[in-house]
């Protein structure tokens, strides 16, 4: 009884009222723009709806059953995993290397280099993809010019289905490199120099310094980058969409990623229920991957 009274009086205190007043609009907005649409999407996944007809018959798990048998969905999953995995591993690997170089004590103009690496990340995907489409042009593109200098014949970077996904991975790596480099640099700057000095006194070499001091202390940033990159790369759409437009564009299936497939099913073929089921599976995949990453790289303070 006393406890209840205490809680009740606490809730009436000005601090609590203020906190509630501040939180309610945020929670309301979050509910409207996040929770309700996610719930609506999950609900729609059990229905057949063509976007035009107001009738939405309930079809149970049929969309999910069709999805797991859908060749294009399997291609999209495979391409998304390849794109996400390769671009994360390559961009984080190169970014860590660059951050280590930029954080050497004798390195001059390091902030300027960081700024240059970071620039692509602040440019929107669409203009970037349009520019890269030109760079991949088979006749006038710079890539064919460059490989021509070392005696390699010109390639259909986007048009050739065997190359097109990798061409997009190169673009994704290039764009994301800057953010990862800057974040790794911040992490490296926060490692106290005394740790390295003490280890050097104990006779540790460069590799041991990296393995036992640098890498473990960069774990929180590495985890953050892994999680963020996974979410961003699984949700990638704009560069794929732009790169496939027009007769010089990439074949859709060769670069088909989950969101692109979802877009085609939803807004091109008007299979909204089917696309909603696909979106729900995408949500689950990203959720599971994020949990796996958290578990495997658990940061213990």
């Amino acid at each position, binding site marked *: 009884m006393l406890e209840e009274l205490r809680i009740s009086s606490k809730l009436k205190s000005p601090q609590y009222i203020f906190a509630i007043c501040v939180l309610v609009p945020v929670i309301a907005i979050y509910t409207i723009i996040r929770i309700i649409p996610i719930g609506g999407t999950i609900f729609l996944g059990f229905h057949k709806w063509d976007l*035009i007809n107001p009738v939405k018959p309930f079809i149970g798990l049929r969309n999910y059953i069709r999805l797991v048998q859908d060749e294009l969905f399997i291609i999209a999953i495979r391409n998304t995993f390849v794109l996400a995995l390769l671009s994360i591993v390559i961009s984080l690997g190169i970014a860590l290397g660059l951050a280590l170089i930029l954080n050497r004590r004798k390195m001059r103009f390091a902030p300027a280099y960081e700024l240059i690496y970071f620039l692509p990340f602040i440019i929107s995907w669409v203009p970037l993809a349009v520019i890269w489409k030109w760079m991949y042009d088979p006749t006038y593109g710079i890539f064919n010019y460059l490989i021509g200098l070392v005696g390699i014949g010109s390639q259909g970077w986007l048009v050739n289905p065997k190359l097109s996904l990798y061409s997009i991975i190169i673009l994704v790596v290039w764009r994301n490199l800057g953010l990862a480099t800057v974040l790794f640099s911040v992490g490296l700057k926060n490692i106290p120099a005394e740790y390295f000095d003490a280890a050097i006194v104990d006779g540790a070499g460069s590799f041991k310094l990296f393995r036992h001091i640098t890498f473990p202390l960069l774990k929180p940033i590495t985890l953050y980058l892994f999680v963020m990159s996974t979410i961003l790369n699984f949700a990638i759409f704009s560069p794929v969409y732009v790169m496939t437009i027009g*007769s010089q564009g990439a074949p859709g*299936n060769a670069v088909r990623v989950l969101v692109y497939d979802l877009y085609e099913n939803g807004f*091109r073929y008007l299979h909204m229920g089917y696309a909603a089921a696909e979106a729900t599976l995408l949500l689950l995949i990203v959720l599971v991957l994020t949990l796996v990453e958290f578990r495997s790289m658990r940061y213990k303070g």
Partner: protein
Amino acid sequence: MKREMMKKRMTALIITFVAGGLLLVTEGISQAKITLTLWSGFSELTPVYELAIKDYESLHPNVSIKLATFDLRDQERKLAVALPSGTGPDMIETCLFTSYKYMEGGCFKKLPAELLKFRNESCFSYNIREVDDYGMPWFGNVDGLYWNKTMFMEAALPGPPKTYKEQTEYAQKLAKYDAKGEVIRSGYSLRLSGAGSGVAEKLWIIGVMPYGGRIVAQAPSGKYHNGYNNEAGRNALKLYIDYLYKYKIDSFKVKHDAEAFALERTAMLMREAWVVGHMKQHAPDVDYDTSILPVVSEYNLRSGLGQTYCLYVTKTSKNSDIAWDFIKFIENPKYLKHMFLNVGWVPTRKDVSYEDVYKEAPQLRNLTYKDYNNVQFYDPMVCTDEIYTKLAERLMAAYTRKDLLDNPKGIAKVIAEAAEETDNILKEAGLYGEK
């Protein structure tokens, strides 16, 4: 006395307020403009629309028409969201390929009787679809063969090919190669890539139609089934594979399409009439001409795709009378000729003389279907885009397969699998009918 003075003052004040109010309301009414919106999927048409809108607005000062042009694919995406939700524009320009599903969904208003009569009397027959009583035909895509006169002269070729046999021979002579034997200039530019249905559409026109096939054929029941799991479909794919790997007329490693033609990176191209406008704008110095498409001698089918872009008025338009009036206004020969000459899209009106346009752009003269005996159309069904886009994806994968060269079994397998997918899409849509 005082009370009377007060009364007079009050009356004067009320009169002043009422008069002022009336003046304001009248001014408001005279200034209130009726605004209509028009969405187009072709940015190159902007000058044509702008000219017509300017003229229309000067004749109707109380009307304002806002034009929004998008990339064709973007427009399709916007329509998918806007039309069912009733947030679309008053007028849209699109073709049956896209519009049929919205017709079925009741998103458009029917053509008024007067415009229906006008359409039936004044448009080319291949621009009219019986199923479409909603859109006013505006322009059509008429396919033609573009050929580079300079390259033909250099190769001592007499003129555009009349048969497929000639086309193949000429293309081999016109293609150029580097020291390693790689194509650096294609003899004939095929559509080999790009998302969407374009790749399948081009195979349909270049390959399937001339051999007497179709992508979708109508069953006796009125429903549909694939029309290419046959000799026509197999010949079509064989033609592409032969052009790529046997005759090396084209390659994945060179530029394609109108851009390649404008940059003189290809000698021949099958494309719609808009390429004339493209060439005028981007490559005015290239010496080229057009011709009707060649035929496969054994079949003698002069084939082309009859696709018409119409102007529709949406169900939610509050000013449909004005919208229809504007649509009739834009069918004026002044705008049709402006579009034909400067953009290249072929007007649908047959009762207008285009001689003055042909004088300025003689290449446009051949871009008509008057001598064609096999003009085919997209069938009116909701899953058209899905059928052609998914077929296109399969074709793009097949085009990279060198092992399909001289491999009739491999080609038959690719075509049979694609045809099965087409039939499955039709079944899912409830439109499949046995042959």
